[in-house]
């Protein structure tokens, strides 16, 4: 019985976690990325999952905004989950390859939007220091 409850809860947890991360991404997917961030990250038209690690490395170079730390950690975990799915389950179910690729690309887009915000935040901080 405990095993059954565990399997049901683990499946529910996975589904809720994926949907939660998708809702976080959906909130930022409408926002355009600045030309500056496109240049820095190399994202030309569509964001690819291959760029995610590089964009996150760039994010870590910028001062952290207090409000986006937990969201970025959640999306980072989601990206790792997708990468794991792509290299395991997607080999058995080929239809999942396209879906995981699309999702990984959207994780990259989310990270690029966060990078854009952090750059703007850093500029504001610098401007405030200059004024002071």
């Amino acid at each position, binding site marked *: 019985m405990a*095993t059954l409850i*565990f399997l049901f809860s683990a499946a529910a947890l996975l589904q*809720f*976690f994926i949907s939660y991360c998708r*809702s976080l991404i959906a909130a930022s997917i409408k926002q355009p990325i600045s030309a500056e961030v496109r240049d820095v990250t190399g994202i030309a038209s569509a964001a690819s999952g291959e760029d995610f690690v590089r964009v996150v490395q760039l994010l870590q170079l910028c001062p952290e905004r207090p409000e986006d730390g937990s969201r970025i950690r959640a999306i980072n975990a989601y990206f790792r989950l997708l990468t794991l799915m792509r290299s395991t389950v997607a080999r058995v179910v080929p239809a999942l390859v396209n879906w995981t690729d699309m999702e990984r690309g959207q994780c990259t887009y989310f990270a690029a939007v966060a990078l854009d915000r952090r750059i703007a935040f850093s500029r504001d901080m610098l401007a405030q220091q200059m004024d002071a």
Partner: protein
Amino acid sequence: MPGSIDYVIWILGWVLEASVVVCALSTRSFRRYLCLNLYMLFCLLFSIGRYQVLSHYGLSSAQYSYFYFYSDALLTIFLYLALITLYLHVFDEMKVGKYLRLTAVLLLAGTALFSYAVVQQSQQKMLTGFFYELSQNLYFVGLVLTYVLWGAILKLRETRTRLIQLVLSLGIYFSAFAATFALRNIFPSFQMIQYIVPVFGCLLPLAWAYAFWRLPEDARMAPARLAVVPR
């Protein structure tokens, strides 16, 4: 006595629970999501109460056991009520609030009767046993109800971002707790669980504080973005 890691998680929980109420008050959402905020407020008060009882009587005292189990059962009932208010928000336009409330009361009474029946059959007929059983059963009922609510959100094409994130974070919380309870039964000697449970306990106030602080009430999203299977 609890170690330094337990105290850090405990204090982090207090800060996050308080921040939910502060964020809801500052964005004028306290009354709109009254049960959710009252649940967080009671979490904070009971948590401080537990600390007081623990420091006066110790971890292995009967006083701490009683206080812990009674407060846990009360908090689970509050969380159940908070979940029902999320149902009321989702089904607001259908004007079925009366039936939802009646069903919720009947389900709560049914769960309490079932828990009582389970405790009565066991050799240890104690009130704490009943509260522990009620708490555990309500967590599972909560998980099933959240899953049903999530299905309704997808079916009704709900677009309110804040409401969606409140429901999803509650779903993560319930399913994580149910999974760890089950894991504890399968592997009783697995020590890491004692840290996993309080960490998951911190995730719910973190997600709710974010939802109240960063997402305006009128924020909307495309429902098709939410389904795991692309539509």
